[in-house]
């Protein structure tokens, strides 16, 4: 926990912006630079800034380790699950055309879900690694 009021107030102001920007990068990655990986890292950076300024104990109560552990697996399962769905639809693994009647719509849906899976796992892993390292100095 840092007692500097300037740092605390600035952090409170910019953390929502960081998270919002991460969501923009996540869902705008189809059109501009960015995608699931960058969005996941930026999203995690917002939480890590929270942990740096308000202490890892506060971060731990904001995102409980059990939730982090779950999210690490959920993202990868989303990505891999899309492949299983396309196989059930009678196509190849990760062939998104099978997700919809219209191949373009299928590609859009597949890429959106897959990128979201990447973002979830990446952000959960980054926060986990930060907590595992920085949290070791906790009393």
């Amino acid at each position, binding site marked *: 926990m840092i007692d500097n009021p300037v740092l605390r107030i600035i952090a409170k102001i910019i953390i929502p912006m960081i998270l919002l920007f991460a969501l923009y990068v996540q869902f705008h990655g189809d059109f501009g630079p960015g995608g699931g990986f960058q969005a996941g890292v930026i999203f995690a950076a917002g939480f890590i800034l929270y942990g740096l300024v308000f202490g890892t104990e506060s971060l731990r109560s904001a995102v409980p380790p059990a939730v982090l552990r779950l999210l690490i697996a959920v993202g990868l399962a989303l990505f891999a699950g899309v492949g299983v769905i396309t196989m059930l639809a009678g196509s190849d693994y990760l062939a998104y055309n099978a997700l919809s009647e219209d191949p373009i719509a299928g*590609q859009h849906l597949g890429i959106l879900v897959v990128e979201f899976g990447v973002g979830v796992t*990446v952000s959960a892993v980054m926060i986990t690694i930060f907590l595992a390292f920085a949290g070791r100095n906790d009393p």
Partner: protein
Amino acid sequence: MLIEAVNIVLLALLAATAIAAVRLHDLFAVAMMFGIYSLLAAVMFVLLDALDVAFTEAAVGVGISTVLMLATIGLVGRHELPSTHRSLLPLAVVVATGAALIYGTLDMPFFGDPGAPVHQHVAPYYISQSPHQTGLPNVVTSVLASYRGYDTLGELAVIFTAGVGVLALLGLRRRKRPGKHRTAQ
């Protein structure tokens, strides 16, 4: 002409940052140098029109890895122990490896050469077909998520494994008994 000048300044700054990082003994300053190095690398990627890579370098290299290094420094202390070994053999290995790498680049096509093998293989197909087959304006996303979906799934599995490895080795649980066992753990 301007872009060459910018490139030369950036490369000179990269070299200066790297030398400073090697020569400094305060690990906090070294971590900052690595952050600056990554930021300069991100600017280089922007100049090379690789915006997605620049984005990643700026977010991971400048942000996350600097924070992780600082967290580690918080655990191990911020001063480097004085070196006790001679550095002649490592210097010879580094010089030989560097010379071999530079020799290897002599065979490579020039930067931006349209006849380079990398621009002849599947890249023209992806660039010409991506708008019709995926409908996405950003070809990087369509290559990563759709054409090369298997590779990206594999990369995500690597990140997943890294997270599981850190959880297995360090864990997230708070230690029950701090104090005298602290340094032993």
